């Protein structure tokens, strides 16, 4: 509705409206809270962790396999290191995996998707067929193959995951760009003589930003999950680095005797992924409604 005679209604700007609607759905708030907590924990890990030295190398054979107690909230592992501290430092690694993988995938995938959709012709066939090939292999298998060939460490596992992840962004960008390029304002820019790159990156890309944001939020969680899976299979970060996936895999060996070794890192993964899922989904409902207007 537009303004009436003179006094213009005080409209909540798009952003305020978004905040109001976001605050009305409890699930999204929980998601946001979880993500904030984990990011804070990751940033201030050295100060938060009760035994910062345990995270890397310290060894106290004395109190190995201590069950969770006041001194060691998450108990201690087979060499006596405090599991809580290792989990806290592990959050750094996981967030790094999530962010790096998503960043690489967006930087590689989105421009390819845009070119395939807008320029079309040979580009479209080559890019989309290549994407189909990559996507027709289950991601874990491909990542596993790539990670195993390299020396197993964190960086290689991140590259392996990105190697299988970028095609999803090509497909997302391709689908969105195809529908946006039908809009009249794209034709207007063409008729005014704007360059192809201007149209792709300054006209089409901003309009898919919201869908991209939703996928990025969800994918950070899934990338962490994939990273942990690779760790679990032994191709991720090697001990003693405190990676959640590896900790679960090692904890599994002593499962019967020390259940807490595997349980708490797994719980941490679960919480992170849950947080990013809830927040991402809340974001999607929010942006869809905004789209409808």
């Amino acid at each position, binding site marked *: 509705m537009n303004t009436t005679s003179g006094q213009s209604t005080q409209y909540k700007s798009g952003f305020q*409206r978004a905040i109001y609607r976001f605050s009305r759905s409890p699930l999204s708030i929980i998601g946001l809270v979880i993500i904030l907590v984990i990011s804070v924990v990751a940033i201030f890990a050295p100060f938060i962790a009760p035994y910062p030295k345990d995270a890397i190398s310290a060894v106290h054979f004395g109190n190995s396999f201590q069950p969770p107690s006041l001194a060691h909230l998450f108990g201690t592992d087979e060499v006596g290191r405090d599991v809580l501290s290792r989990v806290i430092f592990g959050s750094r690694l996981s967030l790094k995996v999530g962010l790096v993988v998503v960043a690489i995938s967006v930087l590689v995938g989105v421009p390819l998707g845009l070119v395939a959709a807008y320029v079309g012709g040979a580009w479209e066939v080559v890019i989309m067929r290549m994407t189909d090939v990559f996507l027709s292999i289950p991601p874990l298998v491909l990542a596993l193959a790539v990670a195993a060939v390299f020396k197993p460490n964190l960086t290689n596992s991140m590259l392996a995951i990105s190697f299988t992840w970028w095609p999803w962004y090509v497909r997302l960008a391709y689908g969105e760009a195809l529908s946006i390029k039908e809009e009249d304002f794209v034709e207007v820019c063409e008729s005014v003589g704007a360059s192809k790159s201007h149209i792709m990156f300054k006209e089409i890309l901003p309009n898919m930003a919201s869908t991209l944001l939703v996928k990025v939020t969800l994918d950070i969680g899934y990338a962490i999950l994939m990273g942990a899976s690779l760790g679990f299979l032994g191709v991720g970060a090697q001990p003693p680095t405190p990676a959640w996936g590896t900790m679960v895999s090692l904890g599994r060996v002593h499962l019967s005797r020390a259940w807490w070794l595997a349980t708490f890192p797994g719980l941490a993964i679960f919480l992170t992924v849950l947080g990013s899922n809830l927040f991402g989904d809340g974001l999607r409902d929010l942006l869809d409604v905004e789209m409808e207007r």
Partner: protein
Amino acid sequence: MSQHILEIKHLQVWFHTIDGVAQVIQRVELVIEPHQAVGLVGETGCGKSVTAKAILGSLPVPPAEIKRGEVIFCNQDLLSLRVKQRKQLLKQSMSYIPQDPMTSLNPVFTIGQQMVDLIKWHKCANIGLGGLLGLRGWTKNKPARKTALQLLDYVNIPAPEKIVDSYPIELSGGMRQRVLIAMALVGDAQFLIADEPTTALDVTIQKGILNLLEERIEERGIAILYITHNLGVARRLCARICVMYAGNVVETGPTLELLEDPAHPYTIGLINSVPKLTKESYVGIEGTLPDYLRPPSGCRFHPRCRYAEEICRNTPPSLREVGEHRFVSCHMIESFR
């Protein structure tokens, strides 16, 4: 009680949105006689579709709220009936033609399947498990399919046998609209609400549909509430016209009288804004539509009205009789007519 087929008394509908409460329908009065075609005319956002939805009971109640008013149909107030009762009443005597033929038919079922379900349902309460599963054999059942074919022929669709087994996507806009009209004529309803059925169609096809509607309505003696934003279409089909502006009925009257000699300032402005074949000059109406979140006090047209006085700004006007079946909702009507 009254011999009107439908009577709306002082209907008021508000919508609760995030930005606040939109007082969309302020006061709607409407009377429809049996076998009479009444046109509800107004620009986008004046609340004509909301009025129709209020009658049909398809207003989504969470955001919408019917503050007050009665919709008396066959001597019962629809608004106070329970859903089950209202559906039963509507099933027998009221039907509806939607606006956009492209999206109003279910895309994954053939025309025949949808019509047979409707016909079956009109006759008996339940349509049995076969109907529910949409088994292909089921739609071949003789009586319902025969009625469907008759109805399609009744709305001048060429080759109904082919149409019955085709999917909506295979039909043109005009053809789909005829199917929707056939569906609306399934039960022998005495009252029909048509929500701008021809807006999405081309002019020549629209003419065909209007002719069809006119003939069938006269034949069956159906009363119709025809909603449109096009005065010309209303003139062609309706005996009486109600002009709506910003949630109020501002003027009603017999079609020819109202168009030749409009009374309410808004109707005058509206008729003057339409480009005519006689090349009379057209001048729009100053200002813009009011904002329902902060509607202007008193008469909602006062910010755009030349004759607005102090009284117009404070007290909302009510419909006053100014001639034979002519009603106008304006305080200053005597001063300039």
